[in-house]
């Protein structure tokens, strides 16, 4: 099963509208700096940095330092906890079949 904690962490991180807007801007560009993200955002650079920290912790954003700049990019794998049902159940049933075989060995050795 998917970890409830992982699902909730991603959902909680994206619940904040400003943070979501930051994430969307990162998704919309290959790589972007804090300065570029701050420009036109209506919030301070410090606030943007805080949002970036949360996004990094949730695994949604990765950073690449270069010289005096840090470039941010989106991490598609970060949304994996929200993957579609079919992929989820593909893994689920294979796991459960393995459990069933173990159980059958126990009750019918």
């Amino acid at each position, binding site marked *: 099963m998917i970890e409830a904690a992982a699902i909730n962490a991603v959902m909680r991180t994206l619940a904040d509208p400003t943070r979501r807007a930051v994430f969307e801007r990162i998704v919309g560009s290959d790589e972007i700096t804090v300065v570029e993200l701050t420009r036109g955002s209506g919030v301070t650079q410090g606030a943007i940095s805080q949002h970036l920290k949360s996004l990094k912790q949730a695994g949604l954003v990765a950073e690449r330092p270069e010289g005096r700049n840090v470039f941010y990019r989106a991490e598609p794998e970060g949304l994996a906890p929200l993957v*579609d049902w*079919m992929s989820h159940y*593909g893994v689920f049933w*294979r796991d459960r079949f393995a459990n069933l075989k*173990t159980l059958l060995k126990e*009750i019918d050795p």
Partner: protein
Amino acid sequence: MNYAALKSDTHEIVVDEVLPHAPETIWKALTTGELIGRWLMMPTGFEAVKGKRFTFQTTPGGAWDGVIHCQVLEATPNERLVYAWKGGHEGNVGYGSPLDTVVTFSLSRVESGTRLRLVHSGFVLPRNDGAFKKMGEGWKKCVPTIGAIAGEQVSSKEPH
């Protein structure tokens, strides 16, 4: 071992294996509450009787409480067990989105035991399927939806 899982064209999951046990033994594992709990999940209210409703509690996601609502559609001892498997919430995408599916177990006696075939059918794949795996326009559309769900979840958990 034959895992023909994830048939993307038919939108169903198939697991098909020959198990070295009699159909009667496997039927017992599929239809006894306590045994179901040991390999699948502990059901509430299960009985292998057509029309019987029961539930499984799984991991909640977004606006969905994680309850799978099931109903026995067919129960032919030692041969076939079919139940509806429904859950999710329309405000969700991906895990926790609306789910209206059917789970079918078919048992057939073979020389070395029983062939057990599971088919989980009825999956409707989202239009932006794959958007999570690939950067693109799909992302920009699905991200706000996730945000909406997440917002709903957080606000419902905050003390009032």
